[in-house]
């Protein structure tokens, strides 16, 4: 493939920028797409306000949307890493969330209940549950990879087969959750109060919601630090960028893949538990979030952790804002429409070049 554009770019450096702009092959720049998305969100805000919801309520919805975005981000970052490194969409990723939530529930049931911490509704047993579920879910992910995805990789199977296999695993894991915990809905703590904190601008956030958001921010920041500052993190980004070249450079790709599963699954487990804390535990909670998760990842750009975060917040806010004037059950539909919108303008997502 003779790249005559490169020859031109070399010869006349000043034109490089101009060539870059056309280089997008008709795809819009990130800034354009970002502006469109912002306009869409503003339009949703206006629609909600026009439908009779007060400005304060819209603001609350926005804030709650940001927090929902944080939860989605915990799953989304893991999903984008796995998607980027392993190159196939893991349809079972939602089940890491579900599993995380339910294992935490199991731990909370088993441990003696302690007093709530500060003004949260939960005690130390929930924190213990988070740690246990992160470990358990990571182990499940490694087992799945070892017995199913790795043999397929070794056979050089086409990626569609891995995607199909992951869909099978989605039903296996969900069936397991149904078997172990049944199809009823559960709460971590029934009957405990969850007082709201008063914030400026008449905002009221429950203490639990604040915890969820803070934890999401901390984990995302940790993730970001790991990806940019540690050797294994950079190796993960390199493998996601170009797995063949990573091999050529001597990176042990199987080790990188193992760490990707561990981190992705653990983050998802915590995300699921947070979702369960903020709403409730249902066996299909992961599946319901699957479409918003994929939407966020694709919008942000596969392989980009930062993109997953931004995409998740946009999706979260959009889902909440539209609930002001639409049936909230259509949340996933909103996520879907936004995803298609971005795909039409810039298929590689906001934060990915190429």
């Amino acid at each position, binding site marked *: 493939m003779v790249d005559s554009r490169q020859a031109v770019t070399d010869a006349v450096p000043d034109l490089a920028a101009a060539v870059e702009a056309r280089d997008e092959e008709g795809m819009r720049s990130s800034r354009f797409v970002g502006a469109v998305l912002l306009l869409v969100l503003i339009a949703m805000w206006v629609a909600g306000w026009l439908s009779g919801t007060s400005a304060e309520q819209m603001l609350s919805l926005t804030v709650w949307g940001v927090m929902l975005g944080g939860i989605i981000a915990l799953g989304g970052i893991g999903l984008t890493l796995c998607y980027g490194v392993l190159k196939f969409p893991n349809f079972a990723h939602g089940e890491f969330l579900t599993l995380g939530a339910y294992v935490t529930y199991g731990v909370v049931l088993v441990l003696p209940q302690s007093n709530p911490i500060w003004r949260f509704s939960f005690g130390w047993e929930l924190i213990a549950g988070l740690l246990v579920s992160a470990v358990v879910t990571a182990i499940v992910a490694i087992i799945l990879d070892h017995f199913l995805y790795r043999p397929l990789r070794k056979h050089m199977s086409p990626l569609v087969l891995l995607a199909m296999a992951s869909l099978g695993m989605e039903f296996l894991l969900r069936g397991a959750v149904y*078997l172990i915990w049944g199809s009823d809905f559960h709460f971590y703590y029934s009957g405990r109060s969850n007082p709201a904190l008063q914030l400026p601008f008449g905002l009221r956030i429950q203490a639990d919601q604040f915890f969820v958001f803070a934890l999401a921010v901390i984990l995302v920041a940790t993730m970001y630090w790991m990806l940019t500052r540690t050797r294994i993190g950079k190796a993960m980004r390199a493998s996601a960028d170009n797995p063949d070249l990573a091999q050529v450079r001597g990176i042990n790709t199987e080790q990188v893949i193992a760490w990707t599963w561990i981190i992705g699954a653990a983050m998802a487990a915590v995300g699921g538990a947070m979702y369960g804390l903020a709403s409730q535990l249902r066996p299909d909670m992961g599946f319901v979030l699957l479409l918003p998760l994929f939407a966020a990842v694709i919008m942000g750009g596969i392989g980009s952790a930062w993109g997953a975060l931004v995409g998740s917040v946009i999706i979260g806010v959009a889902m909440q804002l539209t609930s002001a004037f639409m049936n909230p059950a259509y949340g*996933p539909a909103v996520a879907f429409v936004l995803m298609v919108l971005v795909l039409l303008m810039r298929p590689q997502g906001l934060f990915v070049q190429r």
Partner: protein
Amino acid sequence: MDSAHVLKACFLLIPAILLGVLVFSSWRWRARLPAAVVLGLVLAFGISAWVPGIMDYLVSFCIMATIYAVLSLGLNAQWGYNGHLDFGIAGFFAVGAFTMALFVTAPPSGLMAAYAQQWFGLNTPFLIGMAAAGIMSGVVGYLIAQPILHLRTDFLAIATLGIAEIIRLIFQNERWLANGPQPLSGIPQPLSCLSDSSGCSWLPAGVNHLFSTLQPRDYGYVYLVVVTVTLAVVYVVLEALVRSPWGRALRAVRDEEASAAMSGKPVKSLRVQSFVLGAVIIGVAGALYAPYMVTIDYSHFKPLFATFLVWVMLMLGGSGNNKGAILGAFVIWAVWSGTGFVTDMLATELQGIAPDLASRMSFLRWAFVGLLLAGIVLYRPQGILPEKKRVSRFLKGVPED
């Protein structure tokens, strides 16, 4: 065998002969037809005489398996021929089923109108309803294809999964459309008059007398003929298309898109056509499903039953092979039904020991089917009946993409 049994066996004759025609498809017609008739007679009368007790169960089994076979054929048209990874079969299935229901039912009147709503009810005959179902499903497929068909295969899978979920949400939440989330009931069954005590008004009295030994609960025998004939028509149409220049162009686009484009094949419209064709067939399957169930609601179209199971069927039977699609449907439906028996037994066993666990035994099948697909993908991704490759014999071992 009493006269009722003989009558039922006669009904079974048609599907059995069609089966024979399929099985002996590699024979020439002069041998094929008599052989099929012989096989049909043996199967129909042999089975009726041998195991009259489970005849009824076999009939309902075959009806569902046949409907799933139509679904598999539809998926094969999309995936097998043109490589579309459609994880949203449930959506087209639902569109087909609900369109059929809306067309063949009458609008609720009198007391019912207070409890049930639907967008319209045209009270049309069965075939018109089926045509409408196929067309509607095809239209939806076409509309979906426009923005998303050109996406990468994995994005297509995600998008179709999303669309199926949205379609299901619509049928679940929009009361005015199809009474969601309440079921839409009273779907009339074609030719049900044959098994009614009053007989068909459009048949002469003598013929009606022939069918008088049929009970209403024997309607399945009549419907089995309906679905197998539909399956046969779909199969014949698809096989003809596969061998046509259109079919060859499709396979060219699937296998070597760049060179197909350079040979002047209209790649984009071919891809849309195969996708829409699959959608139409899946819609027809929905049209078969609705009258059989008499009552449908959104929960019938959840991803496990209406998407995932079909994929397992096609992958096991052999993607790219229409016979494989039909075979896979029957085998997996047998496995599914079989595991149903097992879990029921387990449930009764566990009733005394752990009633919680007993009630959840049915979910064991989810896990089982998931593992089954994983096994197929690992050990035999081409399925039982692999695609017959009609590629040039001069090409061997082309490098993987």
